[in-house]
C-alpha cells in the first residue's frame, strides 16, 4: 500500500465565463496547455450552474475530487486525487479564499484580482509547494504574501490580522494602473 501525504493537484481561479484568472498546477496529470484548458472547461461547465456561494461545494469530475466556492464573478477550485480526504481539500480552498479576501480587503471580484494579480499569484505560491500543503491559515498566508515582518523583526506567529490588513491596505493604496 502506497501511503502519501495529502497532495493538491491544482488550484484554479476562473472568471464567470470559465476563463483563467490565475491557475497553478502541481501535478503532471495534465502534461500540456490543451489538457489543462480542457480540464478547466470540463470543471467549469459542470459547476457553473451550481450555487457555491454560501458553502463550498464538491464533486467528482474526470476522476478527481474538486472542491469549489464562488464569489461575485470569480470561481475558486481546488483539485485532489480521487482518494484524497475531501475535508483537507476544503481547508486548502478556504485558506486560499480567505487569504485573497484579506489581501483585497474583502473586495473580491475579477477586476480587483487582476489589478492585484501579483498578490494572488504569491498567495498560490504560499499555499502549496509542489503539491504539498505549505500553509492553510489565511492570516499567515496573507502576512507572508505581504512580506510582513521582513522589515521589522516581528516574528510572523505574533502578527495579527490587523497587521496583515494594514499591509494589504498599503498595497492597495499603490494600486497600479497601466
Amino acid at each position: 500500500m502506497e501511503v502519501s501525504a495529502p497532495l493538491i493537484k491544482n488550484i484554479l481561479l476562473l472568471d464567470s465565463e470559465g476563463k483563467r484568472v490565475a491557475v497553478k498546477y502541481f501535478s503532471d496529470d495534465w502534461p500540456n496547455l490543451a489538457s489543462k484548458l480542457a480540464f478547466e472547461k470540463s470543471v467549469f461547465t459542470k459547476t457553473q450552474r451550481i450555487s457555491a456561494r454560501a458553502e463550498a461545494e464538491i464533486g467528482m469530475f474526470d476522476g478527481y475530487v474538486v472542491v469549489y466556492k464562488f464569489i461575485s464573478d470569480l470561481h475558486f477550485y481546488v483539485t485532489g486525487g480521487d482518494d484524497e480526504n475531501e475535508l483537507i481539500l476544503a481547508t486548502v480552498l478556504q485558506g486560499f479564499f480567505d487569504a485573497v479576501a484579506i489581501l483585497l480587503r474583502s473586495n473580491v471580484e475579477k477586476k480587483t484580482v487582476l489589478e492585484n494579480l501579483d498578490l494572488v499569484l504569491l498567495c498560490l505560491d504560499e499555499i502549496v509547494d509542489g503539491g504539498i500543503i505549505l500553509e492553510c491559515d489565511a492570516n499567515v498566508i496573507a502576512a507572508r504574501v505581504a512580506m510582513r515582518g521582513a522589515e521589522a523583526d516581528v516574528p510572523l506567529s505574533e502578527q495579527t490580522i490587523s497587521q496583515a490588513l494594514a499591509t494589504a491596505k498599503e498595497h492597495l493604496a499603490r494600486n497600479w494602473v497601466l
Partner: protein
Amino acid sequence: MAQLQPVGKKDDDREDDSEYSPFYGIEKGAVLQEARVFNDPQLDARRCAQVITKLLYLLNQGETFTKTEATEVFFAVTKLFQSKDIGLRRMVYLIIKEISPSADEVIIVTSSLMKDMNSKTDLYRANAIRVLCRITDGGLLGQIERYLKQAVVDKNPVVSSAALVSGFHLLQSNPDIVKRWSNEVQEAVQSKASLVQFHALALLHQIRQNDRLAVSKLVTSLTRGTVRSPLAQCLLIRYTSQVIEESSANPQSGDRPFYDYLEGCLRHKAEMVIFEAARAITELSGVTSRELTPAITVLQLFLSSSKPVMRFAAVRTLNKVAMTHPPAVMNCNIDMESLISDQNRSIATLAITTLLKTGNESSVDRLMKQITNFMLDIADEFKIVVVEAIRSLCLKFPQKYRILMNFLSNILREEGGFEYKKAIVESILILIREIPEAKESGLSHLCEFIEDCEFTYLSTQILHLLGNEGPRTADPSKYIRYIYNRVVLENATVRASAVSALAKFGAAVESLQPRILVLIRRCLYDNDDEVRDRATLYLNYLNGGGNEAHSKTFLFTSLDVPLVNLESSLLSYDASERRFDMSAVPREMKHQPMLEKKTPASKKAAKEAGQKAFANGHLTSSASDAYEKLLNSFPEFSGFGKLFKSSPLVELTEAETEYSVNAVKHIYPQYVVLQFNCTNTIKEQLLDDVSVVVDTSEAEDFIQVASRKLSSMPYGAPGQAFVAFQKTEGRLCVGKFSNILKFRVKEVDPNTGDCDDEGYEDEYQLEELEVTAADYVLKTVVTNFRGAWDAINAENEMVDEYGIGVRESLQEAVQAVITILGMQPCEGTESVSSNARSHTCLLAGQFIGGAQVLVRLQFGIDAQKQVAMKLTVRSDDPEVCAQIHEIIGSA
C-alpha cells in the same frame, strides 16, 4: 431626451468597467521589451514589479517563452537582486521558479540566493531556500546542505517549513543528502508550529518508508500523543493504517493493534481528523462490524451536516462500505433517503446507489419510484452510475427482474448520450445472459430500441446478440422483421451486421431458411461491398450442399485468435511470398504484468510495458510452427531436425534508424539459426545482396555452417537473412554474437522509381545478440503443479541455496530469476504481494532434449534488502537438474 442622456451614459460606463482589465491588449513582445527596465542602473522597484507581474500573467495564460526569451528574462531578473525593495524581491523569487532556468544558468543566481539564505530576514531565508532547492542540481546541494540542515530546526516556522518541504521534493533526486537530516527532522516533529509538525512528519516517513520497523516505531511513539496539528494527525492515521495492514492481530484478544488510537481520533476536535480516522477504519482489511460501528456513527452525523463537502465525504465512504458490509450501513438508510433530494447531485447519486446496495427485496419497488423522478434531472454521468447500481441490484434479486428491466427499457427510450445508452444496453445484455427468464422481454426491448437507435456501435452489438440468442427463443420469426428493417433503413455497417444476424437465423431455424434466403438474396444488390460480400458468403454457406454442421460452426463460433494478433500478423504479411496462414497467428494474449500498483502512473507504465511486450511479438507455439515451415522450406536448414524453440523478437537497432533489424533465435537440438528481419526505411535507397556477418569471438561454442542472403530489399518491404551455427556437443552453449549488416546501396529516385545500376558496398553495425540458457528452456503450462511435482521421482531432486545480493524488492528478484531461466510461472506465483518478506514461486518448462523441468524458488529478503533464494529442481533427467543449477550458479 435630455433626461435620458445621463442614464444612457451611466450604462456605458458600467459596461466599460466590466470590460476593464489592466492586462487588456497585453502582448508578449511588448512586455519582453519592457523587461529592459530591469537593466536600468537606477532601478524603479515598483515598475519592475509590475513588469514581472505582466510576465507571470502571460505565463499563467498559457503563453510560452522560447529558450532565448526565457534566458534573457532570467538574466535580466537576476539584476534585480541589487534592489532592496522587499515586495520586488518576493516577485523575483516567484518568477525565477516559474521560468525554471536551465542547469548552466542557475549558477548566476546561486550566490545571490545563498546570500539571502543567510540573511537576517526570515522571509528572505525561507523563500531563498525554496527557490534554490527548486532550481538546483545535486552538485550545489552539497554546498548548502549545512544551511538546510540548520534551517530544518529553525525557530521560525516559515524557515523550517520551507526547508522541510524542499527536502521532501529533493528526496526524489538526492535521497542520500536528505537522509542525513534525520535527526533534525525528528526534532522538528516535536515543533509547536502546526504546519512544521506536519511537514516534518511527512518527510520523516518518506525517509523511512522502506524500513518497516522504523515506521512501526515512529507510529508507536507518536500515537501516544504529541501530535497536535490536524494535518499531521491525518498523516499519522495514514501511517498507522499502513502499520496495521502489515501486522497481525493480537492472537489472544483478537484485538487489532492501534485500533484504539484510530477510534480515539474519532473524537478529535478537527473534522478532517475525524473523517480521516473513520475512513481508515472502514478500509481496514477484514474489518469486523464491531470495529465499524463507531466509524459509521460519526459518518452518519456527517450526513446531516450543513456543509456539502462533509455530506459528500461521508456518503462516498459509506457507499464503499456498502459494497462489502451492507448491513453496517443500513442504520443510515433514513438519513441517506433524505439525501436523494440533495441539491448537490453527486451526493444524491451516491446516496441512491448506496441505498440500492443496502436495500432489501421489499424496498426495491419504493426505491425505483423515487429514482424514476430523480433520473429526470441529473446529468448522464450520474445516470450511468445509477444504471450500474440497478444492474447489480437486479443480479442480487433476480425475482425483481421485471420491474428493473422495465425501468431500464423506459430510460432507454428517453434522451441520452452514447455512454449512457451504452451502459443501459450493456446492463440489459448482462441481465439477458444471467437471468434466463429475462431473456425474451429483454430481447424485445432491444428490438424496439434498434428501430430508433442513432448509435451504430450499439445497433451492431444488439444485432449480434439477436443473431445468437434469437433462434433459440420460442418464436424466432418475430425478430426477423426488426432485423430486416435494419437492412432497409440503416448505414452500411449496421446493414452488414444485420445480414450476419439473418444468416444465423437461417442456419439455426430450418423452417425459416427459405424465407431468410429470399431476404439475403435481396442484399446481393446492396451498394456497399461488405454487405454484398457477406450476403454472397452466407448464401453459399446456407445453400452449401447440406454440410449443416460446418456452416453452423462457421456462423456461431467466434474467431479463435485475438483480433490484435490477427491485425499485427496481417500488417507484417507480405503478399508476394506465400499464402497467409491463419494458424501462424498467435493465439495467446500476452499476459499483462500483474504488478499493478495503486498509483495511476505505475498502472499506466505497466500497461505500456504490456503493450510494448506485445508489439515486440510474443510468439507462442503456433507461431513457431510457422517458423518451422519457413525454415524447412530452405534446403540449408531442412536437415537440422525438429525445431525446439524460437525466441521472441530481439531488436538489434534503435527505433527510427535508417535500417530496422530485429532477430529471432531458432534453437535446434544441434544447431542454432539466427533469423534477421530487416526493413529498409530510406525511400531513396534500394539494398541488394543483404547479408549479416556474425562474429563469434565471444561465442566460441558455435561454428557457422550456413547462411542465406537476401537478394534485394526495396524501401519498406521487410525481408529475412539467416545464419546457421552448429553447437559444440555435450554442453550448454551460450555466447554473444556481434553482427554487421552488409549490403550494396543503390540510389533510387523516389518519384520515378528509377535506380542507378552500380551502387556501392556499405555496412551497418547492429547490436549484439546473445544466446542464453533461457533459450534452451521452453515454457510449458502445468495446470496442477503439485500433482506434476509429485509425479517426478523425488530422488531426481536437487536443492541448493543462493544469495542474490541487494535488490529493490522481492518482486524484482523473482522477475530476474524467471527471466534467467525462461520458464513459465505457474499458479500466478510470479507476483509478490506488496511488502512480503518471503515468497515462493513455481516454474515449469521443458529443457532442450525434451525433459520436463519443475522448479520451486523460495525467496527471502531481509531489512538490508539482501535477497536469498533456495532453488529446488525436479526433472525426469537428473542431468537437467544439474544444468538448471549451473545456469543459476553462473548467472
